């Protein structure tokens, strides 16, 4: 458990954007792992199994609430998605960002910025960038259209960039 607990907690926390929920999910993941211990103890894919179960449990956890309010979110997103490709980026995209910070500093800034995104943007973005799923796999997992997934990820990136730039700038100022 000690070998995987950081990975499981980290996956759940980045997806859920909430540490309390992530701890509940991580607990459930390890209880399920205990129930399958005879299969996992000698498996070389135990890490992959744990990551998949964590991802699925987190999505189930969030969808308990999401399903009840899907009507509103779909209505809202339909209204907002007048342009199906999303808005133009109205600022210059830098070549690198947070490049001069340590991995720990970058992780803290990225996690804080991810928590500020709404669920419908954070989930597909994390699944794409951190879990290496394709757009189609994300659309299937979240049970929404491929177009909406692409739009949500584009918007999430566009929302994340200024948050990272602000935080990175603030960190640079503090460090200097």
């Amino acid at each position: 458990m000690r070998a995987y607990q950081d990975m499981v907690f980290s996956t759940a926390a980045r997806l859920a954007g909430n540490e309390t929920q992530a701890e509940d999910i991580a607990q459930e993941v390890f209880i399920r792992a205990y129930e399958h211990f005879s299969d996992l103890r000698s498996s070389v894919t135990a890490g992959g199994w744990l990551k998949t179960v964590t991802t699925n449990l987190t999505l189930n956890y969030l969808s308990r609430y999401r399903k009840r309010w899907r009507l509103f979110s779909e209505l809202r997103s339909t209204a907002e998605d007048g342009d199906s490709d999303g808005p133009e980026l109205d600022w210059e995209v830098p070549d690198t960002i947070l490049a001069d910070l340590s991995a720990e500093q970058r992780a803290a800034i990225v996690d804080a910025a991810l928590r500020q995104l709404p669920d419908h943007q954070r989930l597909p973005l994390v699944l794409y960038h951190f879990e290496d799923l394709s757009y189609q796999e994300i659309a299937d997992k979240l049970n929404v259209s491929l177009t909406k997934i692409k739009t949500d990820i584009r918007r999430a990136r566009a929302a994340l960039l200024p948050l990272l730039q602000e935080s990175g700038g603030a960190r640079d100022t503090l460090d200097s």
Partner: protein
Amino acid sequence: MNKHEADQKLEQTLKQAFSGLPSRRAPGTLEARVVSELQRRAALPWWRVSFANWPVSARVAFVLICAALVAATILGGASAYLGGRPWNEAFALVLSWVHPFLAVMSSAGGLAAMLVRVIPPLWLYGGLGLGILLYVMLFGLGAAAYRTLYLWPSSAGNDL
């Protein structure tokens, strides 16, 4: 730079920023929580855990008892209603319920048709619109309550 190129550049920039990020450290209490929960679940008697984890003999017995209860209820009800009548009489008794039932349904349908003819269409559309409005208002109140009582407090907690 066009929109597509800007999007691709942003994706690459973020990929670079996300690459090699360490995992977040799990809370020190996680291991103790898991062990405690496993001990709690292990201490539960078999009838308090999910049906899938019951002993096979208990599952079989439960299914047989349920089936016997359902059969006894159906047979008991039927015999109480039909008494000791022969089959043809019992069948006729059951059929005798069909005609009154169809008559009631037909009357209800006739009443509904008459009401549609008598009530002005404007009233019907107005009533329908009012019903939809009340339904939407109910959802709106629910959404407002959800955002106020659930989403905002949890968002506030994230900032701590």
